[in-house]
C-alpha cells in the first residue's frame, strides 16, 4: 500500500515536472497557453547544479555562489510571470510585486541557525531587485521573530538610517489587540502591521516533526505572539486559519522559498545528517501551491533515502489541503491546478 502510494506520488511529481520543463523552456509559449492556464497557480522550481561550484565540488560544496544565486532568482521571477529573459523584464517582474511608495517587509526564517535559515545573499538579492523596481531601501525591512536568532543566522542588524532595516519583532513587540479567525486568536508583530504594505515570504524547505513540512504557510507562525498554541493536530487547521487573517492575506504578494539547502527529516531544528543541497528556489504567488510542491520534493527525497512517506508516519501536512478548501480558498493543492515550471541554471 505504501509502495503504491509512493509510486503514485512520484509519478505525479514526474508528470508535473515533465510538464513544467516543457513549459519552462524557451521563454515559455505564452499567449493562449498562459491564458488557458490562468486558473492554475504557477510554481517555479529553479535549480542550479553549479550553485556551489566555486569550490570545484560540482554543487556539493558548502559555499553558495552569490552571483549565481542572484541570477537564479532573476530567472525564476521572470519565469513566474512568463516574461522573456531581458534586462527590462528583470525589473518588470519585481514591479508586479512592489514599487515606489510601497513599504515592503521580507519575512525570513532563522530558527535553524546558519545550517537551515533563509540565505543572506538571497535576501540581499531580493532587496537589490526591489530597489531597482523603485522601492526605497529605508522602506524595506528584513525580519523574523527574534533579533538574536537573525544574527546567528548571519543577518547584520540594521535599525534606523536609510539602509534596508533588519531586526526582529522583539525590538518592537506585538500589537495589543487580538486578531481572530477560526481556531486562531493572536497578536501580530508590529513589523507586519505597521511596516508592511507588501509582504514577501522567504521561508526554507524542511521537514517538521509535528506538521510534516514547514515551508511558506507555516512560516507565518513567526509573525504572531503565540505560535506554541498552534502545533496540536499537525498544525491543522491552525496554519490555514492564521493565513486567513487579513493582516497576512491582504499583504502577501510573493513567496520565495530558499531551497538551496533543504531537510527531508528531523526538522525543524537543523540536522546536517538529514539535509541535502537542493541548490534551488521555489517561487510562487500561491503559497498553498508552493507548499504542496515543496512537500512533494521532500517526499521524493525521503523515498530516495529509503524513508517512509510522511503519510505513513502519520504526519502528512494536512493543513495544506485545509488551506485550499472551500472555507479558506487560499490557493491550490490540486495537482491539476498547479503549473510547476522547472528551470535550470543560474548562469
Amino acid at each position: 500500500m505504501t509502495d503504491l502510494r509512493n509510486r503514485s506520488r512520484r509519478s505525479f511529481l514526474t508528470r508535473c515536472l515533465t510538464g513544467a520543463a516543457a513549459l519552462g523552456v524557451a521563454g515559455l509559449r505564452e499567449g493562449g497557453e498562459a491564458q488557458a492556464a490562468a486558473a492554475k497557480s504557477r510554481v517555479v522550481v529553479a535549480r542550479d547544479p553549479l550553485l556551489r561550484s566555486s569550490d570545484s565540488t560540482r554543487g556539493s560544496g558548502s559555499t553558495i555562489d552569490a552571483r549565481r544565486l542572484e541570477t537564479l532568482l532573476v530567472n525564476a521571477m521572470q519565469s513566474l510571470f512568463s516574461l522573456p529573459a531581458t534586462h527590462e523584464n528583470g525589473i518588470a517582474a519585481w514591479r508586479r510585486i512592489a514599487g515606489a511608495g510601497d513599504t515592503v517587509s521580507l519575512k525570513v526564517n532563522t530558527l535553524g541557525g546558519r545550517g537551515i535559515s533563509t540565505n543572506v545573499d538571497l535576501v540581499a538579492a531580493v532587496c537589490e531587485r526591489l530597489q531597482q523596481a523603485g522601492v526605497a531601501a529605508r522602506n524595506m525591512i528584513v525580519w523574523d521573530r527574534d533579533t538574536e536568532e537573525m544574527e546567528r543566522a548571519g543577518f547584520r542588524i540594521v535599525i534606523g538610517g536609510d539602509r534596508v532595516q533588519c531586526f526582529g519583532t522583539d525590538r518592537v513587540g506585538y500589537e495589543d489587540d487580538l486578531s481572530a479567525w477560526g481556531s486562531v486568536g493572536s497578536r501580530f508583530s508590529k513589523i507586519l502591521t505597521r511596516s508592511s504594505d507588501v509582504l514577501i515570504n522567504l521561508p526554507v524547505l524542511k521537514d517538521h516533526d509535528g506538521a510534516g513540512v514547514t515551508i511558506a504557510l507555516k512560516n507565518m507562525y513567526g509573525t504572531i505572539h503565540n505560535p506554541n498554541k498552534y502545533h496540536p493536530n499537525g498544525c491543522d487547521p491552525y496554519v490555514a486559519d492564521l493565513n486567513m487573517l487579513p493582516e497576512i492575506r491582504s499583504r502577501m504578494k510573493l513567496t520565495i522559498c530558499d531551497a538551496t539547502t533543504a531537510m527531508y527529516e528531523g526538522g525543524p531544528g537543523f540536522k546536517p545528517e538529514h539535509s541535502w543541497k537542493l541548490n534551488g528556489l521555489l517561487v510562487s504567488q500561491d503559497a498553498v501551491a508552493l507548499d504542496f510542491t515543496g512537500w512533494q520534493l521532500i517526499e521524493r527525497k525521503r523515498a530516495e533515502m529509503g524513508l517512509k512517506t510522511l503519510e505513513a508516519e502519520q504526519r502528512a501536512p494536512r493543513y495544506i489541503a485545509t488551506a485550499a478548501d472551500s472555507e479558506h480558498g487560499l490557493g491550490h493543492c490540486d495537482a491539476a491546478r498547479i503549473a510547476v515550471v522547472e528551470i535550470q541554471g543560474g548562469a
Partner: protein
Amino acid sequence: MNCELIAAESSARNPLDRRSFLMCALASGAALGAGEFAAPAGAVPLASGAQAQNDAQFTFEAKFYEKLANRKIKCKLCPRECVVGDKERGYCGVRENHGGVYYTLVHSRVCAAHIDPIEKKPLFHYLPGTNAFSIATAGCNVNCKFCQNWDISQSRPEEIPAQYISPHQAADIARKYDCPTIAYTYSEPVVFAEYLMDTADAAHEAGVRSIVVSNGYMQHDSLEQAYGKMDAVKIDLKAFTESYYAKVVTGQLKPVLDSLVTLRKMGKWTEIVYLVVPSLNDDDEEFRGLARWIKANLGPDVPLHFTQFHPEYLLKNLPITPVSTLERAKAIADAEGLHYVYIGNVPGHPAQNTYCPQCRKMLVERVGFTASKMLIGKDSTCPYCRHSIPGIWHA
C-alpha cells in the same frame, strides 16, 4: 489559565468590583514600593520590558519530562505530553528543548505580583480575611477562549515584562507584608511548577504557607509532587463535559476530575470554581451532573463557587451571565446535597456568605473580597449550633 483576574487588569476591565481591585492594587503598590518588583504586565511597554530580561537567570532544567531519541523530549507535566524537538517549545510556551534537555524558562520570572485578599482567589474556607502575596509567570497549558488574563497566560515569557524574584525573596516579601500565604495564580501555575515547588519550600521555612489557583490539568505524578507542597488548592473546573473542554478550553475534563480526586486523597483543602458561560456550560443537567459527581467523589463539604462570566478574549460575543442563571445553578447544587455553594463575581449577593448547613445562620459575611464578619470559632464550629464547619479558619 485560571479565572482570577490580576489586579492591574481588573481596575480597567472588571466593572463589578473595581473599587476593591483598585484599592488592593494601590495598597500593594504603595506598600511594596517601586524597587521590589515590576509593575504588572501591561503597565510597562512590551518591548522595553522584554529587552530588559536576562533569559539565563530564569532558565533551569525542568523536572517533569523524559528524553527521547534524536534530541526530542516528552513533557510529563500535563496530560498533553508534548513531544518537543530540539529548539522547540511545548504548548505552554515556557519550556524549551535545548539539545535534548528540557528547560523551564520561567523560574523566578514573575510577570505579575500583588497582595490580594484570599477571598479573591477565591478561597472562602481558608484563612478568611487574610492577604496572599500573589504571583505569576507567563504561560498556560490550555487556551480558554474566555481567559481574563490572556495577555500573560497566552504569551511567551520574553514577550512580557517580568522581574527576577527568587523563592526566598518571595517568602521574604510575604512575611514583610504580613501575608500568611503565597498564592500561585493569575496565569497557570502548572507551567511554573519548579518555581512553585522551590518557593513553597522557601516559604514554609519562613513560616509562610502556599496556595495555588489552577486548572488541575496535570499528570498524576506532577500533581502529587508539586501540589503536595501546597496548603490549599483552588481548582477551576471549566465545565462538566469533554466537548466543552475540547472546544473552549483546548484540554480534557477527565484528567481534571482525576486531579480533584487525588487532591482529596492527599488531604489538601480544595475549593472548586465553575465559571458559568451563557449557552456553553449552563445546562441544568450539567449543573446536576457536576454536583452529583462532587458529592460522590469529593463529599458534600467541598465549596463550589458558581461565578459570573464577563465577555473577554475570544468570547466577546456572549453576554454576561445572568444572575438568575447562577442562582439556578446554586439551587440545583444545593438540592443535590452540597453544603457550601457560592455565587461569585456578583458583589452583594447573599450567596457569597457562608451559612451553617445545619442551623442556616450566617457565619461569614463577605463584602466584595473582604470578610466583614467571621463568627466561626477556633474549634471550627458554628457558634449557634456547634455544627462542624470544614475549612482552615484560623492561622
